């Protein structure tokens, strides 16, 4: 027995000595891996891991390999702050992720206090521009860019009376209120501005309320799971007008949940890999690795991780301050979803939204 204990002690000692002089670069991944947005969260986690594997296969950056550490933010502000503390105390060098704006915003300060650079690859509330303590970088275009694309679409469709429905969380309320403001500014009418509770299955009361206002277009600004339900119930309730959804609903699951009702629905989307000329290889690699299709945020998240690696290379070390400074100086980094540069508030400098349309049960690029 003693012999075994001794052997164990020695092996621990040897393992300690054998550790490489150059430590690995530890990257925290903060995404929702449970709850209603789990699909997106896992897409994003996969995308980071794929980027990391590719980087490591080439020997890493500056001779250092990458490791990852995932924490579940559950798309919930409280869970997210717990996840951020977990990531911070795990001693990461940088963080990639952030899907739900409402859950990501309260973590900014935690990472800022620890001086950790944070590459946000999906969340895009306009509040980031005021609340950014300087260490967060948005690879996704912020909500207000999406609003301009939305208003242009509604005008083109000849919409007069618009109804907007959101869920009261950071992301969807932001998009809804900005759209309402812009739409009114352009001299048009918002006939209904409604809020539904998250996870509410029965939306018949809302459907009747909307129908009584007779809108030409219903714009859903929240996420796919409840969006699918609303679209289905709108059609089931006999609503014949047009429907559009924000980028949080642009997911294959929306089509499954809403079924036939989603035919002809418009969607604003981030540059999805399948519509990108650079996306073909990415999709093929992703499918080969994870046996599933990449989600709408996987290309952006892959870009985010690659951008981080690039910044570390430019900084010459994984030192948190140097990496933050290098990220700030990013100039037209060639990402899959387009060139990445940042404004002085660390927001993506140029819009990257596209308009999609559901045709034969599939998303296709709307002309």
């Amino acid at each position, binding site marked *: 027995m003693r012999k075994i204990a001794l052997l164990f002690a020695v092996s621990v000692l040897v393992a300690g000595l054998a550790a490489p002089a150059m430590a690995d670069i530890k990257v925290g991944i903060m995404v929702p891996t*449970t709850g209603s947005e*789990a*699909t997106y969260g896992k897409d994003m986690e996969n995308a980071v891991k794929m980027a990391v594997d590719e980087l490591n296969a080439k020997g890493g950056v500056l001779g250092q390999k990458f490791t990852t550490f995932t924490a579940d933010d559950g798309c919930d502000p409280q869970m997210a702050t717990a996840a951020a503390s977990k990531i911070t105390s795990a001693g990461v060098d940088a963080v990639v992720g952030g899907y739900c704006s409402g859950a990501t915003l309260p973590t900014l300060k935690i990472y800022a206090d620890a001086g950790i650079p944070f590459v946000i690859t999906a969340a895009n509330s306009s509040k980031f521009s005021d609340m950014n303590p300087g260490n967060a970088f948005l690879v996704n275009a912020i909500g207000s860019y999406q609003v301009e694309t939305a208003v242009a679409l509604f005008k083109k469709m000849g919409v007069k009376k618009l109804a907007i429905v959101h869920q009261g969380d950071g992301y969807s309320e932001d998009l809804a209120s900005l759209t309402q403001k812009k739409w009114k500014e352009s001299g048009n009418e918002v006939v209904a501005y409604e809020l*539904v509770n998250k996870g509410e*299955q029965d939306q018949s009361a809302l459907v*009747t309320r909307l129908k009584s206002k007779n809108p030409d277009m219903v714009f859903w600004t929240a996420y796919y*799971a409840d969006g*699918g339900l609303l679209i*289905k119930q709108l059609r*089931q309730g006999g609503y014949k007008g047009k429907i559009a959804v924000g980028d949080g609903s642009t997911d294959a699951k929306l089509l499954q949940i809403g079924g036939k009702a989603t035919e002809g629905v418009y969607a604003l989307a981030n540059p999805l890999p399948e519509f990108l000329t650079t996306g073909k290889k990415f999709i093929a690699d992703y499918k080969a690795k994870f046996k599933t299709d990449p989600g709408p945020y996987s290309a952006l998240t892959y870009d985010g991780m690659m951008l981080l690696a690039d910044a570390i290379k430019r900084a010459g070390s994984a030192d948190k301050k140097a990496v933050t400074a290098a990220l700030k100086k990013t100039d037209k980094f060639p990402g899959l979803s387009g060139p990445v540069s940042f404004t002085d508030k660390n927001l993506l400098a140029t819009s990257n939204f596209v308009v999609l349309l559901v045709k034969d049960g599939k998303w296709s690029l709307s002309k």
Partner: protein
Amino acid sequence: MDTLDIISQQIANSLILGSFYALVALGYSMVYGIIKLLNFAHGDVYMVGAFIGFTLLSLLSGFLGDGWLGISAAVVLSMIATGFLGVVIQRIAYRPLLSAPRLSILITAMGVSLVLFNAVMAATFGEYKAFETGLDFEGVDFGSIHISHTQIVLVLATALLMTGLTLFINRTIYGKAMRAISIDMDACRLMGIDVNKIIALTFFVGSALAAAAGVMAGVYYGSIHFFMGFIIGLKAFTAAVFGGIGIIPGAMLGGLLLGALESFGTQMPWIGTEWKDVFSFGLLILILVFKPNGLMGRNEIERM
């Protein structure tokens, strides 16, 4: 849509919503009536029923299609399977505690709820499952009111289940035994009634009704997820208390009235649909304070 149209449409909406609440509330009420347990795992039984139905439908749709035939088969089979789940829960978690203080068994019920909730979360990786069926949105139009065939079938199915249950409770020997146990369990034991078997049967029926509601909700709304049972569990509890907990027709009435309250309450122009839950749970508080025995309850004198 004029006001009359809106009112008629809301009556239709409230019937659907109320049907789901009533079916789940029945299980609460039956179990409370017989062993005085607030079975807080009942909402999760509803959720598990929906998942069993979902799995069955994906298996059966190959032979029976994903139309009404396949759905009916999935509903019936899920009712049976979930009914047995209810019996197993009763046997493992509640029966050993029947003579323990009421609080112990209530806490056990919460434990069962957590077990079911987390098991399904782990098994489905916390994802939404799309409940895909071959049903369309065809329906009947009266002016600007639209009622889909699916909605009509769901309300009829609920009515059928409730009629069946009423007949079962009032006309069969098992129903008679249930009613007897709810009055005096010890006397029933002395009279030679197999009390444990009847309690198990109560759980079977209650869980089967919840499963029927779960599968129908999945079919109707189009998606299911592991936390779908939480809110409806609380709402059904409200409905059961509203009607008078332990009283079968009370649960049905409570469910339908709660559905109506939510549908109409949120239609007031200055109140949005986000106030739905406030209506339900506000009602629960009011009832518990002013009429704790519910609409159809008798005033009971508790001996201390």
